[in-house]
């Protein structure tokens, strides 16, 4: 699947997007894998108290995982996952 990064996650990962694959994966599997790969700086913008930070926007094909099953949201190989750290404006 395709994983897209925005805001400072682009600096932390060094890329705007990359491919990621794992059979029968969930959003939790993806995030844990990215934390392992990109370390504490990634983790502190995405995780809080061992769980997905409530202000982080993760969209699977445009749908917010906070409206789905959060970390338990199941991913398919054709999915596009976008990740925004806590950001806002108005």
């Amino acid at each position, binding site marked *: 699947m395709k994983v897209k990064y*925005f*805001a*400072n996650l*682009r600096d932390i990962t060094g890329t*705007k997007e990359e491919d990621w694959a794992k059979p029968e994966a969930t959003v939790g599997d993806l995030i844990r894998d990215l934390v392992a790969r990109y370390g504490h700086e990634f983790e502190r*913008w995405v995780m809080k108290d061992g769980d997905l930070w*409530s*202000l*982080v*926007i993760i*969209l699977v*094909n*445009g*749908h*917010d995982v*906070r*409206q789905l099953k959060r970390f338990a949201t199941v991913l398919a190989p054709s999915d596009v996952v*976008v990740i*925004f*750290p*806590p*950001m*806002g*404006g*108005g």
Partner: protein
Amino acid sequence: MHGWIGKIVRVDLTSGKITTEALDPVMARDYIGARGLGTKIMTDEVDPKVDPLSPQNKLIFVPGPLTGTYAPSGGRYNVVTKGALTGAIAAASSGGTWGAECKFAGYDALIFEGKAPNPVYLWIKDQAIELRDARHIWGKNILDTSDAIRAETDDDAKIACIGKAGENLVLFAAIMNDLHRAAGRSGVGAVMGSKNLKAVAVVGTNGVTTADNAAFEKIVLLARDKIQKHPVGGTGLRLYGTDVLTNILNQVGGYPIKNGQDGYFATADKLGGETLAKTLLKRPKACFSCIISCGRVTKVINKQFAGEGEGPEYESSWGFGGDCLIDNLDAVTKANYICNENGMDTITMAATIACAMELYELGLITKAETGGIAIEWGNAEVMVELTRLTAMGEGFGKKLAMGSYRLAESYGRADLSMSVKKQEIPAYDSRAIQGIGLNFATANCGAAHVRGYTIAPEVLGTPMKVDKDAVDGKPALVILFQNLTAALDSTGGCLFTTFGIGAPEYAGMLSALTGVEYTQESFLNCGDRIWTMERQFNLAAGLTAADDVLPPRLLKEPLKTGASKGSVSRVPEMLPVYYDLRGWDANGVPTPAKLEALGLSR
């Protein structure tokens, strides 16, 4: 009084008479300041049916009690009047340093009435207040006006002024202060121009007193700490500005493009805050007492669109960008500069150009009218030129100066104006995000995101995440955000502080500052009172429930692409619930019981 100075200036521009009067403490308590106090004065003193551009309209500059204190982002003021664009109550908010300086000079409000026989500006240095001839400044842009007035008053003068757009009565002219900050929406600058008032220059050397210094310091430090620890208020806005929203809104399918024809733009990333930060951004900038620093000091080197200034914010980037099908950030920023330099609202300017592009595509606007300009989608050069023509009052710009509603109406297609109450809808698609559509439909000043920013819970997830596609619970959510915003605007604080603090902190800061006890409940009740009073003004002006509607496109044409494909706005389902929860009847008229409860019975 503490927090409030206790003094109002009244300037009769017709006669040149200037008087000061005391601020009524009960009025101050119930309406707080800024937007609330200005609306109360308008309600008491102005016939809502007046022509906005007539001498009978009044123009009120109002800081709030927190303005000029060290409360976080406590530097804002409002310009309250009957809007030239909308014919509705207008309260345009601006940051910078002007509001604080007005308080330091010793005033809670400046009321301008009548019309000066010749262009003038007001010069205030503490107790000394005088009207000065501005004929030699008339016609100058914001920078040259500010320079000229400083040269003949004081190097430290803080200046709020209009540019050519306000002078030419462009219906969406803004009032600019500190060069780049705008009381932007609803045409407050046109009202200023109609009064022959070019500028208000202020130097103040006093301060704002506090009822309980220790308590105020304690809660301000707590509030600042909460904002700094919030990832948006403390870090995100400084890094990327508000334009970071571009990709967020686009990815959820709520980024309007082509005059609202769809909700996703494939190349939106070229316009986003991430791109801005890596290309045009020189440094972030903060307003008075601000710890957030969302302002963008930028420079465009590209010769075609070269310039320096501030911006763009998200709404400006979207309007000149995606809404016109343009992904050239240099051009977008140039158009923003032209608006700032000449005093125009970027949202209405941009959305009016997008509307013109659609009218041109349909063959309703022709080259014969435009002076040979092909107003085609995606043409960045044309977009910038149309902005310039409007600012200068030249050619087809004279027609664009009416805003999109009157433009589209003149071709028999008012339905193609993406506006509510004749004010253009900002950068959030009501089909993709249900609550914000209800806010746009019901905002008393016409469509505005800064009246009830439900994007925070519906998209960003702060202070909690709610389903953007749901309609259940949205009327109550919208009302809560609208009331909170009305009260917050009235303090002189900044909406962006809500990325960290809310009603409890504002009630606490106001109480310690003023010595008047505010609770979270009474603070929100003030917001309800202000909102309802604005509604009453509009109803008396002739607006009705028929004005609480979105353009038919948003109700009938489903989004074609993006994550919200297939959606339409469900405002018609939500509106009756909204009226009922507000304590209004089925026609959107506040009931006697509601008015009584808010202390608004006459």
